[in-house]
């Protein structure tokens, strides 16, 4: 073959191959940013972009919102409607949310001219170290360009130029699996995340599920994980958010996520307590973290980070004082700057109890 022909064929095939990847990426749309919607279910949905787009068209259906990370994804607006009269909540959870997201979300809802009567703020104390930015492969966490101020064309070009093979293949297999038993369901109308397949597994054979789940059966103490103190930036951003919410007369309820004991076992008490203390100096909140009846029972969890809907319902019941009969007494403590020291003392005892129960590895 002549060199010219070889060169031209090779370049053409490379370009064609690359364009095929681009087409595949667009059609499968593993992060849901293009809105192609041919395949509907994906565990890698970019909720920041998808929910922004959805609310820009439907904000007038709602007057109240849940702000939080994917851990808050199981909080059911239906349950909130039962607890509070005349409210239409939307679960605006996004992956790894923290203070910056709360402000961005509030700003874009304001930008739409949305009514905001109530916000239920669900804080992940352990993730409040910094706004970590986006690591390789975390395209599911990049914000919509209209919320981040980035160039919209550049944003879509950036997504189009990726070849996220893992996410593409996982979305295809997810959608095939969905025909049998859905793994993951992202209901855009309510904003709720659900995991029906895992729920089935837990209900059918919870021991096997726990045995298969690495995060739920470590049963050891390893407090060496590098949890750093709550960053100044996050504290500042949370202050800004609280001030803005107050200025808008938003009825704010704040709570922390109940971490599974396996996750709690990774936390250094003093750093964790420091974060709770810092939060108590800004606002009153319901603390569901620590070692309690709920967090020490693996049946309440999908993994060491994500609790199940029954837990969310108990949290709502406790916070809004609605049908609290099924809620264990030790689940949920109302914390303010007046009782924070006592609360931290109680938590210290819980940490000691855990250290003795699961012998320290460090």
């Amino acid at each position, binding site marked *: 073959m*002549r060199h010219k022909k070889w060169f031209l064929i090779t370049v053409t095939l490379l370009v064609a191959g690359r364009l095929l*990847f681009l087409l595949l990426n667009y059609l499968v749309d593993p992060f849901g940013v293009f809105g192609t919607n041919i395949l509907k279910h994906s565990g890698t949905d970019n909720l920041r972009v998808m929910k922004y787009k959805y609310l820009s068209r439907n904000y007038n259906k709602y007057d109240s919102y849940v702000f939080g990370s994917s851990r808050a994804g199981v909080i059911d607006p239906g349950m909130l409607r039962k607890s509070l009269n005349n409210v239409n909540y939307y679960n605006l959870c996004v992956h790894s949310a923290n203070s910056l997201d709360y402000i961005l979300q509030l700003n874009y809802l304001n930008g739409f001219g949305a009514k905001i009567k109530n916000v239920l703020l669900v804080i992940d104390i352990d993730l409040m170290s910094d706004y970590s930015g986006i690591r390789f492969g975390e395209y599911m966490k990049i914000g919509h360009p209209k919320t981040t101020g980035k160039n919209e064309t550049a944003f879509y070009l950036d997504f189009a130029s990726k070849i996220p093979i893992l996410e593409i293949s996982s979305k295809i297999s997810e959608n095939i699996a969905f025909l049998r038993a859905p793994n993951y369901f992202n209901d855009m109308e309510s904003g709720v995340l659900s995991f029906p397949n895992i729920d089935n597994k837990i209900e059918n054979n919870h021991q096997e599920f726990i045995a298969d789940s690495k995060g739920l059966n470590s049963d050891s103490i390893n407090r060496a994980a590098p949890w750093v103190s709550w960053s100044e930036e996050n504290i500042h951003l949370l202050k800004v958010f609280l001030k803005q919410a107050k200025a808008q007369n938003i009825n704010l309820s704040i709570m922390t996520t109940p971490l599974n004991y396996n996750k709690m076992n990774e936390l250094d008490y003093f750093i964790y307590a420091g974060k709770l203390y810092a939060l108590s100096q800004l606002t009153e909140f319901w603390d569901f973290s620590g070692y309690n009846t709920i967090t020490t029972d693996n049946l309440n969890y999908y993994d060491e980070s994500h609790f199940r809907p029954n837990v969310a319902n108990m949290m709502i019941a406790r916070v809004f004082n609605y049908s609290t009969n099924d809620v264990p007494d030790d689940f949920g403590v109302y914390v303010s700057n007046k009782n924070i020291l006592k609360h931290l003392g109680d938590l210290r005892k819980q940490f000691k109890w855990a250290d003795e129960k699961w012998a320290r590895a460090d």
Partner: protein
Amino acid sequence: MLFNTYIYFALFLPVTVIGYFLLNKLKLTIASRSWLVLCSLFFYSWWEISFLPLILFSILFNYTIGTALGGKMLNRKTILAFGIAVNVGLLGFYKYTDFLLNNINIIIATDIKPLNLILPLAISFFTFQQITFLVDSYKGETKEYNFLDYALFVSFFPQLIAGPIVHHREMMPQFKRIRNKIVNYRNMTAGIYLFIIGLFKKVIIADSLSPYVAQAFDRMQTVSFVDGWTASLAYTFQIYFDFSGYMDMAMGSALFLNIKLPINFDSPYKSLSVREFWRRWHITLGRFLREHIYIPLGGNRKGEVLVYANLMVTFLIGGLWHGAGWTFIAWGFLHGMAVAINFAWEKTGIRLNRILAWFLTFNFINITWVVFRANSWESAIKVLKGMSGLNGISAKTGLSDVISFFEILQIKAISNSSEIYGFLLILMFAVIFHKNSIAMKDDFTSSGMNIAFIVTLGLLAFIGLDKVSEFLYFNF
């Protein structure tokens, strides 16, 4: 601008190449070379435009000094010394000031604040390149180059950032050769062939090893025997595939413009001695150190004792050139010692068994890369301690936490972290028994098989391009 980005190979390179040949076709040869200079400076500034004045000053200064040295002035030696001093001074200022201040603070217990200078990109490379030019001008070995050609020689983008450290004698004539000004598809095919192989080496091989290396060197508190050897071998292959991948891309890019850059790697891990290693690894750096340090010091002409001293000085400077840190100096020292021992051994006339010679050489290189890679002595000692078995054979947690690129690619055979060993074994086999990319290019035929080969490597590399990473040698 990085070679492993779409902006480079899908936009910058084609535009530069098309513009160059178009201007040549219109017989605008000065404009075509000016175009290459402009493109090269654009390429350089893409990274950090604030260093553009520095490289422009460096080019202008060295051209002026070189021209003066080529004339008949009486004080040429002083001019040469001045020229070298300014070059070395600039490099030293940016690269070694903070290192010096830190050591002064330690030695005489002062608290002088570091300047936190950012090392201008490519300064280590264009400084050495221009020192060669000055020395050759002094010796009368340079022709009367015009400024444009000189600026192109220094700034030519394929070799600007991380070498090879080219010689004016091997570059200038190529820029002027008439037949190099028309499109040559033989060179184009060789160019794309080398470029894609280099891209694959960088993106798929070197970058996939990077997380294992970083985990052991930068994150783990203690390193076990198994993890220590895994990490050290991973780095040994990472630095080779990273740097030789870069060189393949540089040579490939230059070939599009009909320019042949000197070979910088010749299967270094096949070496049977450390001396041979230095004839195969970063060949153009070795050439510079030999021509401008070892030989001027006397080389092997001034008696046996001085040979060893000269070797040590050359390697210590070589180590220091790679970075301002005691670990780099120690690495240079160890290699200097090894070459000196090698030198003495060769005098005995005893020849080692080839397999044993390879084994000793490879392991020496592998172990000394640990010192080279480590960000601190603590990190180096941690890994070396692990490799010696003092921390136990294997650990409960360690490299198994790493999520590799293969996991992202869903290549199950490698995605299981314990199967990194299989990957390392394949790489070992490749560097010892397989032809290197230059030899592959020399044997290249424009066949359908080679189309399939290059398109497959290219598409795999495109998948890996999502995580653009710098080349290791940009730091040096």
